[in-house]
């Protein structure tokens, strides 16, 4: 049975010229796993918001949008709340209560379920997700991955028949993202819940997907089963959202059935390709050195950095990998002089970091970009941050963003604008904390080019990241952080070849010949 029917749907935002969606038609059967993909701003989120009545933005709508044969707009609030669940990008903001238990009960409480029913549902969901140990915990104590799982769990308490997810894994590390997607696939398979997920990185999703829909500028450019869509070579834009095996397959010009997973890809690529690595070289002058550095947040707290050593040279692009919460951000903050280590030696440009006074370090030597790009913007327009800066000298063209409010700019663009802002002081050593989290493939390309261009001019980078493909494209050296120390540091190709988990799919498929 069709659970969702979309026919000739067009939508234009209030005060916007171009439509966000035009003539979109597709249908979803009960129990299907639907993946919506496309570059940032293609209308994925808008489409999801239109399906969930409570989130429908203001604007002009035409065409048909039916849930189980009923127009979505006319659905009673109760039905929509109970049967259509929704999980959005950032887990932090969708959690309402300060306890896990309260959060799980929230839906049931709002719908006025009797106590027995609410408890049974919450108990079931809690056991299914393995939340029994954290049931009484406070929500801020959970990790990012757990928070996102909690958001999904709290939606499931009312047993919805359709779940909508808007880029739920874009803020998670790869391990947590894989956990989340496999849980979602399990829900789809075991409970028969229909899933519609919007995501621009499909590598985790493709194997579970029944229907792949590709949106571009508000129009559907491809729709069907993954194999069906990939029978012929898709357009460049579609391809950039596909997982590594698919991309490699079409780039290498091979024929036959397109591989969807690493396992399938290995059969085609292993042993057939010749080794080929990017040239990675950099200067010999030390710009940053940490020796035996210790750090903890509180006197009675635990050590986050435990005798860490690190040396970065001029023009080096260093990536730091490690699980969530292993202290990568703290390492960056300590090295940039923003957090004070209690023991050890941090030297920047051959001078003790404490010898720099009154922020002279940040005038034109060192700069850092935090994970949350919105922290950069304290004015009401993006341009407010760039007063007295020559816009044309920046590595990325932000002239179109200057008059806009930072929160109206898409995640990828804002990230690039924030990067421009921290680079505008002309630093020689730049620290970036997960800079590509909200970026799609096109934005990542621009990011890589920016980094490589500055590297040529002798700027050094220390980048904490989860994205191994990004490292393959622009890192000179990579480090692995564990237990408060950098346990190994080596050239990117050696790093990726030796690793089994922290490596790229390309590397896995070719046995390390390509990275």
């Amino acid at each position, binding site marked *: 049975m069709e659970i969702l029917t979309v026919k000739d749907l067009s939508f234009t935002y209030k005060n916007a010229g171009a439509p966000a969606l035009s003539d979109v038609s597709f249908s979803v059967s009960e129990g299907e796993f639907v993946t919506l993909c496309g570059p940032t701003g293609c209308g994925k989120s808008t489409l999801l918001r239109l399906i969930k009545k409570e989130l429908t*933005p203001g604007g002009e709508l035409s065409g048909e949008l039916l849930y189980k044969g009923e127009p979505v707009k006319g659905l009673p609030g109760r039905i929509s709340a109970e049967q259509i669940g929704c999980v959005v990008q950032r887990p932090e903001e969708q959690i309402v209560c300060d306890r896990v238990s309260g959060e799980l009960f929230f839906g049931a409480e709002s719908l006025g379920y009797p106590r027995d029913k609410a408890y049974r549902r919450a108990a079931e969901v809690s056991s299914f997700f393995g939340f029994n140990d954290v049931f009484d915990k406070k929500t801020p104590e959970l990790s990012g991955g757990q928070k996102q799982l909690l958001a999904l769990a709290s939606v499931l308490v009312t047993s919805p028949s359709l779940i909508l997810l808007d880029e739920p894994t874009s803020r998670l590390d790869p391990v947590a993202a894989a956990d989340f997607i496999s849980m979602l696939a399990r829900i789809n398979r075991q409970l028969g819940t229909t899933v519609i997920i919007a995501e621009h990185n499909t590598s985790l999703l493709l194997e579970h997907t029944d229907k792949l829909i590709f949106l571009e500028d508000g129009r559907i450019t491809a729709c069907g089963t993954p194999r069906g869509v990939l029978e012929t070579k898709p357009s460049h834009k579609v391809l950039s959202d596909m997982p590594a095996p698919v991309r490699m397959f079409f780039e290498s010009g091979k024929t036959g059935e397109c591989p969807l997973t690493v396992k399938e890809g290995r059969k085609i690529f292993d042993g057939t390709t010749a080794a080929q690595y990017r040239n990675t070289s950099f200067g010999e002058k030390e710009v940053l050195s940490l020796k035996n550095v210790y750090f903890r947040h509180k006197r009675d707290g635990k050590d986050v950095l435990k005798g860490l050593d690190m040396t970065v040279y001029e023009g080096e692009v260093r990536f730091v990998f490690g699980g969530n919460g292993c202290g990568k951000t703290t390492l960056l903050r300590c090295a940039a002089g923003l957090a004070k280590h209690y023991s050890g030696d941090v030297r920047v440009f051959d001078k003790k970091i404490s010898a720099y006074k009154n922020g002279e370090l940040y005038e034109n030597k060192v700069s850092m970009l935090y994970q949350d790009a919105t922290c950069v913007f304290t004015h009401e327009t993006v341009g407010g941050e760039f007063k007295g800066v020559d816009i044309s000298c920046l590595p990325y063209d932000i002239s179109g963003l200057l008059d806009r*409010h930072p929160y109206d700019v898409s995640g990828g663009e804002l990230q690039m604008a924030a990067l421009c802002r921290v680079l505008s002081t002309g630093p020689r050593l730049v620290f970036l904390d997960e800079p590509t989290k909200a970026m799609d493939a096109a934005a990542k390309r621009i990011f890589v080019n920016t980094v490589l261009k500055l590297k040529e001019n002798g700027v050094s980078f220390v980048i904490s990241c989860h994205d191994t493909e990004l490292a393959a494209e622009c890192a000179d050296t990579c480090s692995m952080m564990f237990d408060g120390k950098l346990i190994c540091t080596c050239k990117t190709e050696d790093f990726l070849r030796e690793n089994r988990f922290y490596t790229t799919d390309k590397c896995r498929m070719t046995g390390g010949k390509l990275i």
Partner: protein
Amino acid sequence: MTVIENKNARNVIRVLTPVILTAVAVLCALFASDGRKYAVITVIVTLLTLILFLSGFDSKRIGSRRLVLGAVFVTLAVAGRFIPQLKPLTALVIISGMFTGAETGFLVGAAAVLISNIFFGNGPWTPLQMVGMGLIGFFAGVFSKPLQKKKIALIIYGVLSGVFYSMFMDIWTTCSATGSLLLSDYLKSVAAALPFTAIYSVSNVIYLLLLEPPFHRKLGRIREKYGL
């Protein structure tokens, strides 16, 4: 406790609690011939007012956005109290009342006091402070139109709310210090608190003038972007 689960029982509680509390208040007044009865009575009466006020709001449903915006204001107000030399609590309560309505204003005022007292020390004076601050937020919502339009109205309201809150809390000061609530004692403590009242009112006005324009713009943007 079983009373909470059952809808009828809950309603009974809601009706009975104020009644019982009033009875207790009257009882206290009856048997206590001397001492601090006024302090006790003041606390009980304000607690009653508070309960009546708050339970009245539920029937008049506050939308989720207003409620969360209210919570945002409370958090900002409480967090603001931690910045040294910066106490924008009253100003933020007034602003929240102005832009999110009278009910939310009361809620924000009462909750801001309750929660900041978790960090700064709750006491028998908490209900009194809650009602006082709640009323400031409530009336800011009632007079939201002139307050939003005219700077002068804002200045007057800032001064009045400072004077009101200070005088309102002097009731407690008098009760707890002298054990009774004589008009002469009350006026004495109002007079004694005059310098503080003046500083408080002036700082209120300054914070309002500093914070109102940016919040006006920010909330206007939110209103336009998401609809409120």
